[in-house]
């Protein structure tokens, strides 16, 4: 491929991939403000909806003995009976009360499901979250915590793919952007100045904060 052809293909890919990626970049960038300034608690979460109790559930008899991902997988049919959807954050076992307390999250809604596995009943409390909190949730998912459990719903499994794709495509956008800038001879001097200024700011800040 000639240099000119390579340039044109790279420029087209930079343009089209950049346009495709732009909503994801906006989502991650806007959620930064909520995360950095702890804004997501306002105005959400809203007040809880009234709790509902469901009886005669079909519950795996060994659910209290299971641990980790196996227990989460065993809880999924119970949640389906309760019509509760989302990612199970974690499971807390109150052994003396024969209860499992299961927070389940969608970006804009969460539910706390309390299952009495002896009585085969469950109480569900749910509440809405605002847009800011939903963006923050997506920004943080799947994240480094509870790695064994994370991705127990289609939601986070698909979002993990979306987040990873955003990273890889953004890396391509930056590298192709550098190449396109290098080709523009007229912008080289001021571009180099800004590149060095940015590098200086970055390394200076990292040194000051972390050294």
């Amino acid at each position: 491929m000639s240099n000119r052809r390579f340039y044109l293909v790279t420029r087209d890919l930079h343009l089209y991939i950049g346009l495709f990626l732009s909503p994801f970049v906006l989502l991650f960038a806007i959620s930064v403000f909520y995360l950095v300034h702890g804004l997501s608690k306002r105005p959400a979460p809203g007040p809880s909806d009234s709790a509902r109790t469901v009886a005669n559930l079909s519950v795996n008899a060994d659910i209290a003995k299971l641990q980790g991902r196996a227990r989460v997988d065993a809880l999924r049919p119970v949640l389906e009976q309760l019509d509760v959807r989302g990612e199970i954050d974690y499971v807390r076992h109150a052994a003396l009360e024969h209860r499992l307390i299961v927070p389940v999250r969608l970006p804009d809604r969460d539910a706390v499901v309390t299952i009495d596995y002896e009585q085969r009943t469950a109480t569900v409390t749910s509440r809405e979250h605002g847009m800011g909190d939903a963006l923050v949730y997506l920004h943080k998912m799947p994240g480094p915590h509870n790695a064994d459990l994370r991705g127990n719903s289609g939601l986070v499994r698909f979002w993990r793919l979306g987040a990873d794709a955003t990273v890889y495509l953004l890396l391509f956008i930056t590298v192709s952007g550098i190449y396109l800038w290098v080709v523009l001879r007229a912008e080289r001097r001021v571009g180099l100045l800004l590149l060095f200024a940015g590098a200086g700011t970055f390394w200076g800040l990292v040194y000051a904060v972390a050294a």
Partner: protein
Amino acid sequence: MPSRPDDGIAPERPERGPAAAFLFWNRRIHYFLGLYFLFFTWLFVFTGLLLNHPRWQFAQFWPNRVQTTTEHQFQGLTGGSEIERARDLMRQLAIAGEIQWPAQQSGPLAFQVSRPGLVLEVKADVERGRATVQRTELNTWGVLHLLHTFTGVRADDARNTRDWMLTTVWALSMDAVAVGLIAMVFSSYIMWYRLKAKRVGGIVALILGFVSCAALVAGLRWLA
């Protein structure tokens, strides 16, 4: 839609009028922001990937941490509030960083001082003037992880607010990167729209992007 060979490789030259000047600077700002924030973008993009893949062995840092505990004497602390006394103690112990208070404070003055790559657990017996400092040092991967999340605030924790100047500076740099990325997105829309030959392909790419993003955000209920 492929480029034609004569699709302006050279930068646009300013023509007369505010519209032409706006377009000229819009293009330059796109380059300039991208170049200035390049290292910040790489850091947050790469560490975002690491945070989403905690099982990657090469980037493990917590099992490789180095912990040491030391004991120190200190003079009587000045200040009426906990934060003032903590700052006085930090000054005497020559440590700096973001103070994190535990969820429940009982007994001795106890707090955590953190910065990317370093966590100090400080417990002070104010009456006897003795302090124990547990120092946890993380490797380079740990530093990178914490640079991504080092904001000094948590949405559900009103007690812990940013109290170290460098945390504020770092948080502002995160804001600046986010603003820069948003500006680059909108400047790219303007540049693309000016390329008539690319409008159809661009609209397809943009719609695909918005539909994918909306499907992942709004349609997650169905996927869940």
